[in-house]
């Protein structure tokens, strides 16, 4: 008698991103205003030619505040009961975002990111606060970090894998929020950073955005983003092209099968180049948010997916390719079937 085998691929194929919600702080600033406030090192003209115009600034809001707002919005819009959510995956790019404390004006001491008044501060986790504030008593929590701006991709990938492997887990809330350190220049490796948060509901048998394939590449040799900027910029394009092509091949697709690329917001120029490299015309890359929202660290792709959906840029059954890049150094790609 044949031994039954677990077909992970077919189980994975049922999980998808059922709902997306994002949050951007109300305060925003133009490139000129950032310049005037000492929050920009580079040339306004150059950054504008790379596609940027405004970014959002969190002000008094903490990263956890933003995360809660994005998640609240999602729960109010999604067809899901709080009790159905079995797991919260809290994804962060900045080390400071993984705690409740605000970096504020403090400086690093002895390798620590924050100036601590109390060691107990290190154990204040925003994931738990989200669970409490949203009243999700059946959701356990986990943190996903150390993959930079690719953290939400890592969370979505984990959510899909856990749904596939845990029969009682049907709904996972992935949340991401990052607040850039106050007073720091917001242009970073040719892009302008915005504060923001996003949330995604990953469900078994999702009615849309089935996760067809996802993949990630990590190049640990380039872990030191500060001193290896040149190497990182040079590595970006070849690795991005290679990962996208590999992910498409794993899914049995070509770039021509992709209705819309849902990008990160690390400069429109970089997408012009990457689009040529992967053979994707510019009108199939959704770059509308780059000018008005900037690079929201880990929330770009969900922000863009949400807007593209709201504006009916995608139709049922469309294949979408999401791609992002994060310090660490990480490249991540995901294919969805809308």
């Amino acid at each position: 008698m044949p031994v039954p085998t677990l077909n992970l691929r077919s189980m994975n194929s049922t999980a998808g991103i059922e709902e997306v919600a994002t949050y951007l702080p109300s305060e925003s600033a133009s490139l000129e205003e950032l310049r005037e406030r000492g929050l920009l090192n580079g040339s306004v003209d150059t950054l504008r030619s790379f596609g940027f115009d405004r970014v959002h600034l969190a002000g008094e809001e903490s990263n956890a505040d933003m995360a809660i707002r994005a998640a609240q919005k999602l729960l109010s819009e999604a067809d899901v009961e709080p009790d159905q959510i079995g797991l919260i995956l809290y994804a962060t790019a900045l080390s400071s975002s993984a705690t409740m404390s605000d970096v504020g004006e403090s400086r690093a001491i002895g390798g620590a990111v924050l100036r601590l008044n109390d060691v107990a501060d290190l154990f204040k986790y925003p994931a738990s606060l989200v669970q409490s504030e949203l009243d999700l008593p059946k959701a356990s929590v986990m943190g996903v970090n150390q993959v930079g701006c690719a953290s939400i991709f890592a969370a979505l990938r984990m959510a899909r894998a856990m749904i596939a492997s845990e029969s009682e887990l049907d709904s996972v809330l992935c949340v991401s929020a990052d607040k850039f350190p106050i007073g720091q220049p917001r242009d970073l490796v040719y892009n302008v950073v915005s504060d923001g948060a996003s949330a995604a509901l990953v469900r078994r048998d999702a009615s849309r955005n089935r996760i067809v394939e996802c993949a990630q590449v990590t190049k640990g040799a380039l872990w030191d983003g500060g001193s290896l900027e040149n190497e990182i910029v040079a590595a970006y394009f070849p690795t991005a092209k290679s990962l996208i092509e590999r992910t498409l091949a794993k899914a049995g697709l070509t770039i021509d099968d992709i209705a819309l690329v849902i990008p990160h917001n690390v400069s429109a120029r970089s997408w012009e180049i990457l689009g040529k490299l992967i053979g994707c015309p510019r009108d199939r890359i959704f770059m509308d948010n780059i000018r008005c929202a900037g690079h929201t660290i880990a929330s770009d792709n969900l922000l863009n997916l949400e807007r593209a959906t709201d504006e009916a840029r995608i139709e049922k059954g469309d294949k979408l390719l999401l791609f992002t890049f994060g310090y660490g150094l990480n490249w991540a790609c995901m294919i969805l079937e809308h």
Partner: protein
Amino acid sequence: MRRTIFMTGATGTVGSELLRRLMTRDDTTINILVRRAGYDRRPQIEYGLRGIDARATLNVLEGDLCSGASLGLCDDTLTSLARVTTHVIHCGGSTSFVRPLDESRAVNVDGTRGVLEFARRCDQLESAAFFSTVYVSGMRSGAFSESDQGDAGHGFVNPYEQSKAEMEDVVRETMRDLPILLFRLSSVIGDSRTGSVRGFNTVHHAIRLLYQGLAPMVPGCPTAPVDMVSSDYVADAALHLIERQSRCGVFHLASGAEASTTIGEILTSTIDSLIRFRPSWRKRSIEKPMIVDLETYELFVRSVEEAGNQVLRDATRSIRTFAYQLAHPKLFATQRTTDALAGSGIAPKPVLEFYPRVVRHCLETNWGMQPC
């Protein structure tokens, strides 16, 4: 009969190889013209001659190619040299791709005029050899034969190519009157047996940028030919032709259709060699540079320029000085050279056969910064 050779560029990549061979000849006097540097150039020259059985007489003359017909020498010296010189070998010149055109012209065109003037004064002249580049073909594509001339209106990738094309015009005008051999060299990358490099050029710099992970893309097509030659082949072939070829002519010292490689193969060989000779390099997970169309490459170059990142900008600029050649693929025909070398046993080795040794030499000497 005693030969007296007047030579320029004897400290350069090709000149130094030629000098090592010429110094082993009996009954030979070699007068080399070196740029006046304000210090004694002899130790450098002697260092380049170590390990050979020197039989020829060597005289070092300090002068300047940019001084017109005098070559920076006094008239008495020039007159006595002209009286005895049987061979002129002009390897001197500027090989910088980034030097402005007027400066490149001053050395490569006007300097050649000065050498030609000198050659006209040599009553016993048997041959005068001038060294050019196959890249006088500029941005034209397709086959480029030894009888073809210049860029055919397609333009040049850098001022060096243009100055050499103009140099050829000057030399060609004199071919009716003097026994001139014009050698067009491909990219000379090192010794085929040892991989040792006497003059590091843009090819080696490109290998270094790839090693450092600063070369994300090059323009072109993976199957486009890449022509490179070894310094020993160039020296052996040129010397054979100088000593035996009696007729004027243009000769391509290039790998040609038989021995050349392709962009795709050379990039793969570079990566393989770096991993083989520096295993720890693999840890850096550097991707093979992408071969992209010219439009994409130019967009990337423009973005790097606008972003103002100094290191990446310098890296991109240095690749750009020759990378555009890759986007204009061409095959250098070598029929006349092959015929003239027939029976000599001298032929270009397949590039991929010795290229890894050159990469190893680059690694072992840290691109010439430390002794092997």
